[in-house]
């Protein structure tokens, strides 16, 4: 009797397990590797997606910026296909393109999943290119649009009767007046908060000064038009552009501003966010992701009366942002496309801005009345910023070029390399060596 009971129990267990397996076998599970900036919004959308498509499970895996890129590249190199979808930083587009699926091919292969209301034309063209394309290959759908903006204290400016600066020379004058050391009547301790640490931050910050010079009429005449894949660091014929008077002038402007900023070489994103949030500084070039924490800051309350935002002085802020792509080695390309299409449609582009301040990539969001009511600057500041942004290189060698450049720029700003042109020339030679030219 005892043995019969045991056998019966085992039989029931096996049947149950088989049943569960069969039920699970009908479900497709896909994962989405995400940077922290995007993870909250994507997790939110994943819940909604799974309610709409109960046979598809989506797991969002947040990873820090430093770990995300190596994981993606290692997965591509090994063809493990461990990650079905991922957010990729715009300047890693070239390196990631080798492992990302061609979305146009997926759309042709599975026309039934293509959303008729998706409207690719609604994407801001720059966003579509830098977060979506590599050459002729559509490697992603734009998710997080970003450029840097110029935030300032409206109340401090009003107090001193200052105009909102539109050029870096104007910023210099305002910064001096807003720094207590130079003007005892200044309402702020420092005029501006800058972040020039020895990280990728310095690489993109430099473009806020070099970009306007590169894209000036004389810059275009000298260097040619900007290629969106090679970016503003290069000339039209893909040679370094920064080893020039313009490149040196950008560094001079940065140096001149440093005296009005608290510890720029030792500050990064967190420090500048804090300094502005506590009312220590009057101006700060920053990303939109800061807005969420500033809105909760007592020193900036009421936010709409104290904080103004305008296009970066010079008019060509550096671009950032992320695309959503599909791993070429995933066995679930159809479901993966359904997911990334869902996460980047019109509704979610608006939602991730309103709820998470993840920058939009579509005209419809930037012109939406509900959005403009709270963020009126989206139409007149955000769109032009993204359309006229300056770009880092997106080529596969970008990470190496970036690190070499950051080391050099940091040494120059520390004052250890006084001959800027000569140092920039040496850097350009190093870049050419890396590019094997």
């Amino acid at each position: 009797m005892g043995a019969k009971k045991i056998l019966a129990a085992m039989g029931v267990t096996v049947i149950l397990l088989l049943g569960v397996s069969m039920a699970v076998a009908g479900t497709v599970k896909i994962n989405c590797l995400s940077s922290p900036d995007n993870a909250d919004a994507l997790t939110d959308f994943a819940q909604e997606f799974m309610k709409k498509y109960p046979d598809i499970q989506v797991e969002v895996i947040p990873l820090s910026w430093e770990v995300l890129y190596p994981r993606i590249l290692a997965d591509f190199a090994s063809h493990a296909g461990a990650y079905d979808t991922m957010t990729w930083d715009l300047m890693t587009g070239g390196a990631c393109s080798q492992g990302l699926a061609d979305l146009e091919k997926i759309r042709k292969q599975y026309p039934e999943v293509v959303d008729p209301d998706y409207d690719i034309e609604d994407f801001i063209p720059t966003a579509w290119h830098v977060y979506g394309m590599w050459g002729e290959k559509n490697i992603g759908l734009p998710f997080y649009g970003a450029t840097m903006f110029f935030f300032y204290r409206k109340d401090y400016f009003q107090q001193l009767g200052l105009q909102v600066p539109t050029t870096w020379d104007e910023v210099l004058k305002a910064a001096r007046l807003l720094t207590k050391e130079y003007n005892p009547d200044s309402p702020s301790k420092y005029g501006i908060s800058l972040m020039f640490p020895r990280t990728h931050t310095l690489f993109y910050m430099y473009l806020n000064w070099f970009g306007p010079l590169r894209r000036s009429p004389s810059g275009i005449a000298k260097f040619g038009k900007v290629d969106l894949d090679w970016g503003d660091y290069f000339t039209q014929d893909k040679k370094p552009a920064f080893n020039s008077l313009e490149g040196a002038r950008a560094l001079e402007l940065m140096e001149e501003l440093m005296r009005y900023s608290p510890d720029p070489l030792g500050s990064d994103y967190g420090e500048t966010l804090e300094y502005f949030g506590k009312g220590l500084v009057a101006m700060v070039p920053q990303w939109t992701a800061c807005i969420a924490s500033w809105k909760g800051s007592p020193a900036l309350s009421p936010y709409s009366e104290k904080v103004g935002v305008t296009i970066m002085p010079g008019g060509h802020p550096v671009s950032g942002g992320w695309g959503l792509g599909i791993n070429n080695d995933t066995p679930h390309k159809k479901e993966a496309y359904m997911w990334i299409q869902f996460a980047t449609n019109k509704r979610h582009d608006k939602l991730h801005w309103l709820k998470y301040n993840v920058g939009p990539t579509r005209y419809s969001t930037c012109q939406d009345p509900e959005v403009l009511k709270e963020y009126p600057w989206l139409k007149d500041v955000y769109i032009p910023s993204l359309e006229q942004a300056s770009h880092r290189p997106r080529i596969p060698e970008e990470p190496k070029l970036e690190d070499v450049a950051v080391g050099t720029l940091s040494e120059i700003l520390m004052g250890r390399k006084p001959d800027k042109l000569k140092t920039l020339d040496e850097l350009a030679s190093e870049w050419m060596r890396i590019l094997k030219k």
Partner: protein
Amino acid sequence: MYTRLTAKAVPFFMVLPLILLFLSLAMFPFGYMIYISFHDYNLAEGGSPTFIGVQNYLAMFRDNVALSSIRFTLLLVCTAVPIELGLGIAIALFIRGITGEKVIRSSLLLPMMIPSVVAGIAWKMLYNYEYGPMNYFLSFFGIPRISWLGNYTFAQIGIILADVWQWTPFIFLILYAGLQSIPRELAEAAKVDGASEFEITRFIELPLLGPLIGVSLIIRIIDVLKVFDIIYMVTWGGPGSATHSLSYYIYKVGVSFGWDIGYAAAISLVLLGSIVALTTFLIRMLRLKKSLGFE
């Protein structure tokens, strides 16, 4: 015969899974690292490895950042380690017999128990220019704010300070335990002969602690040669290349920006070889084998 063979084969097959695990997780990656160090292989560029002989090794000596990393690593060895040794010995000698010795001893060990990553975050906050406690307390002495993370020299000092804070307890622990194990009769006999406390310490305790001091020195040198996490969390190797250690540079080259696996492997092997050579030299110079009873 069959029984004898089986008797020999069974233990072998029982440990075989572990051997295979060890080979695959330890020996294979190590062997592959040696192999790839002679190749040009970049994950970001795709393609397969290309044999280039010793080019990666030669490139290291033409690479200014690699050379700067070696210099900073050696600076750490020559400053942090002696400070830790000196402080560790001094604290171990000083706290004996004072009131609250046990409590002080336990609290002195706390820095060592904190993960380096966590300690790094804390030090970064301590070094904050505007709000950091370091500048706050220095202001009591009339010292103006220091850019701990933005100044070439102070960034290096900052890393040294953080390392000394975290690992002096390690030296202290080893030497304190060593002092406890020295027979009391030796000190008592010396006192009877009229030796002062200083003479007892100088001529009896410190010489007996010699082997332990040697072991602590070697362990700390190996650790400092590999330092990575405190740099990663506090300064990111900056400003410029002020605080690039060799380990940190290997990470940058191989994982963070370069994806140049071959070059990273070559630098790793050079570092490994240096550590092995240095420790062998130190063990011989300090005659540790003899003093620890291995000869």
